[in-house]
């Protein structure tokens, strides 16, 4: 198991290298001159040229990339072109908020989505099932910014019980969490339902019913556990999406998260910030993927055996065979 984890961590190194190369190349070939954007329309050509030289933008692609890589290896992500603050400091300022929001939203989605999916599956074609699935469909199709604005209109403007924007206390989290998790809840509920439906038709479920096992244990112990793999996958994906993709919500609720930060940086051609941000998100994705894989093993013993040594695997195969 430990060997598997170490191997996976080593594998992320080329992945991260690839990510930096890709994002560096993309930014390098994008139109727009950071020096001109910093200095504005009123600056003369000479001033822009001097700043370009200062920022190292006149170096060749290879030079720029190697310099950047050397910096990253030394733990230096560069400084923001716009504010002059180290990129790592700026990212640290925002990553906490992003992780907190993503975690809360995903937990909320799991707590609502999985039970909803289970109920739908168990009571297939009932009114509850139909309503849940219609709501889930709504959740997936409803544009995120629209839902966010409607929440604000209803709870802040109309009822005036929740603050409209910012993140200055517990109350402030309610609307962003609901808004970010809407799609996740729907996706998780739908995945839980279809996965559960597949499982509860299987023979072993019928067997346990026949032997008189209580329905609760059948559903939660026997069925859900076997239905969990695709659900975990979906939860992982949704969590990952909310880490970098909550831009719209961050905009509507004026939350200083990582997503909006990166979009602003792209607009300003603030290369160090874009590269640093993408790198950090890539690292988070890798860790998340690893955690999900480990969770698979935890849930499903069959997968766990794959992670173990091949000799051990052989032994198990022999025993089974």
């Amino acid at each position: 198991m430990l060997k598997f984890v170490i191997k996976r961590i080593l594998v992320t190194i080329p992945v991260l290298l690839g990510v930096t190369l890709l994002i560096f190349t993309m930014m390098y070939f994008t139109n727009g001159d950071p020096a001109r954007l910093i200095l504005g329309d009123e600056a003369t050509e000479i001033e822009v040229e001097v700043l370009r030289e200062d920022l190292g933008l006149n170096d060749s692609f290879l030079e720029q990339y190697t310099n950047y890589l050397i910096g990253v290896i030394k733990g230096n992500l560069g400084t923001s072109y716009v504010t002059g603050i180290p990129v790592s400091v700026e990212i640290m300022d925002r990553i906490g908020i992003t992780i907190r929001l993503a975690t809360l939203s995903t937990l909320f989605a799991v707590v609502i989505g999985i039970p909803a999916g289970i109920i739908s599956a168990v009571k297939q074609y009932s009114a509850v099932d139909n309503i849940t699935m219609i709501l889930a469909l709504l959740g997936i199709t409803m544009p995120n910014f629209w839902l966010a604005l409607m929440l604000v209109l209803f709870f802040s403007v109309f009822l005036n019980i929740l603050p409209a924007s910012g993140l200055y206390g517990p109350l402030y989290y309610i609307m962003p969490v609901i808004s970010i998790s809407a799609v996740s809840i729907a996706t998780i509920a739908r995945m839980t339902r279809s996965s559960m439906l597949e499982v509860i038709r299987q023979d072993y479920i019928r067997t346990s019913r026949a032997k008189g096992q209580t329905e609760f244990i059948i559903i939660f112990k026997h069925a859900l556990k076997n239905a969990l793999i695709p659900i975990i996958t979906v939860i992982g994906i949704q969590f990952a999406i909310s880490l970098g993709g909550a831009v719209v919500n961050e905009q509507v609720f004026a939350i200083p998260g990582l997503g909006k930060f990166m979009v602003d940086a792209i607009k300003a051609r603030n290369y160090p910030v874009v590269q640093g941000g993408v790198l950090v998100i890539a690292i988070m994705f890798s860790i998340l993927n690893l955690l999900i894989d480990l969770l698979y093993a935890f849930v499903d013993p069959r997968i766990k055996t794959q992670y173990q040594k091949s000799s051990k695997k052989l032994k198990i195969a022999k025993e089974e065979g």
Partner: protein
Amino acid sequence: MMKKWIATMLSLVIVMVLSLTACGGKGGQKEGQDSQSTGTESKTEGETRSDTVSTPEGKTALKFALDAEPASLDHYMHTKQQGFTVGTLIFETLIKKDTNGEYIPWLAKEWEFVDDTTIIFKLRDDVTFHDGSKFTAEDAAYSLALGAISSFSKTIFSSIDSENTKAIDEFTLELKLLNPYAPIMEALASFRGAMLSKNARETMGEEAYGRAPIATGPMKFTEWVSGDRIEMEAYEGYWGEKLAFSKATARIIVESSARSIELETGGVDIAMELAFSDWERIEENPDTVLISGESQSSTFILLNNSMEPFNDIRVRQALAYALDLESLVDIVFQGQATIADSYYIPSILGHKTVGPMEYNPEKAKELLAEAGYADGLTIDYYTYENPIHSPVGEVVQSMWAQVGVTVEIKTVDLATMTDMNNNGLVSVAHMSPTVAIADPDAALMIWPTWRTISIKHNDQHVQDLLDAGRSTYDDANRAEIYGELQDYLFSKTYNIPIAFPKAAFGTRGNIGGLAFAPSFVPDLTQIKFQ
């Protein structure tokens, strides 16, 4: 194994429930309660939210919402009006302009023009910086010299002789100009001429100083939460009258609807830069006040005069004749703008009504035929996603189509647009540059021949008139020069003036004393709670 799994699931649920109760347990209860009790509850709970709802007597904090985050608060490091707005609380200028348009003493007690290029300022001797050190002529000389060389302010201060502007004694400043420069007093009275601390800026470094400035204003900087807010508190050692508030917070709320909702719900006291679509709601709401007026900037359609076919005056004029400006301004600005009758707004010195060009599609067709485009013409129009520029493109496209001009709209992002514009590659675009100070020289700042933007008229006569205007101190003579320039520009149709848009910000009903600022930088120190 199974037990472990159930335990994990359970703990997940518990974490969720706990975080929910931590985050919003009271919110959950509240939804079921009547609005009165929630009102009081939110007062005791969310301090950021409550005090704006409370009575004005106890009000000591001002919260205002900006539409973008400035990169720096040092006005020689950026040109964002959002940074200037915050800056009006922290920094101060040598002189100010009162409501009658007269220049009044501020950090400078008195001043005297020795000759056309020399001004002597006597400074107050009781002014200290937020770090306790004294404000001296040395700081003033440093600030003005910086203004002259910074690429962010040199359009206004380039006439200052940065080497010979110096402190004569501790509180006497000699300001030297390289050449006579009529807008100098206007520039010094605007926020762009605010004073910095030489010692603090030099020891901290310009970037760090811009993120935590030390100056002489009534409020001192306390905290900047990147992407979220900038906080200030009253400076105890302030030389002048204390402000009506002892704490101020500038929140960054980029989304314009979110900004106006925060204002309506009392989350902020002032919301800057309201979108046209929100004006009516703010005006009708009994709790909020809309403060609107004519902004300093004007919009125009840029034509690249060094590019085919716009180097032909007949084509430029045809394009102008083909525009029904009345409909265009009505559609795009939703009635919140007037048709531009010249190259800058009427309230700035020397404005002369020279247009607008009449709407005459027949004449446009004739001129195009004369220029050799009887069979039509295809041009590229550049724009980026913007609530004003995008619709202007669509309207212009349909209007020009009627005289046989096919417009291909190229939507790029702002960074690409800026780059192309400054490399002379934009053919046609709608633009609305911000005018730094209420002076014709600044209002005409797209016209100098050295500018890198795509207008590329290369007309020395324009430059000569601009030079003459900026070096003439007598207002009547100056106005004459600019009148001639406006006539000349109109006769050449180097661009097509479109609109003088209005702008607005909203305040809560209990905010008084705040006047509309055409520069978009209202003087927040004037606020009184009612």
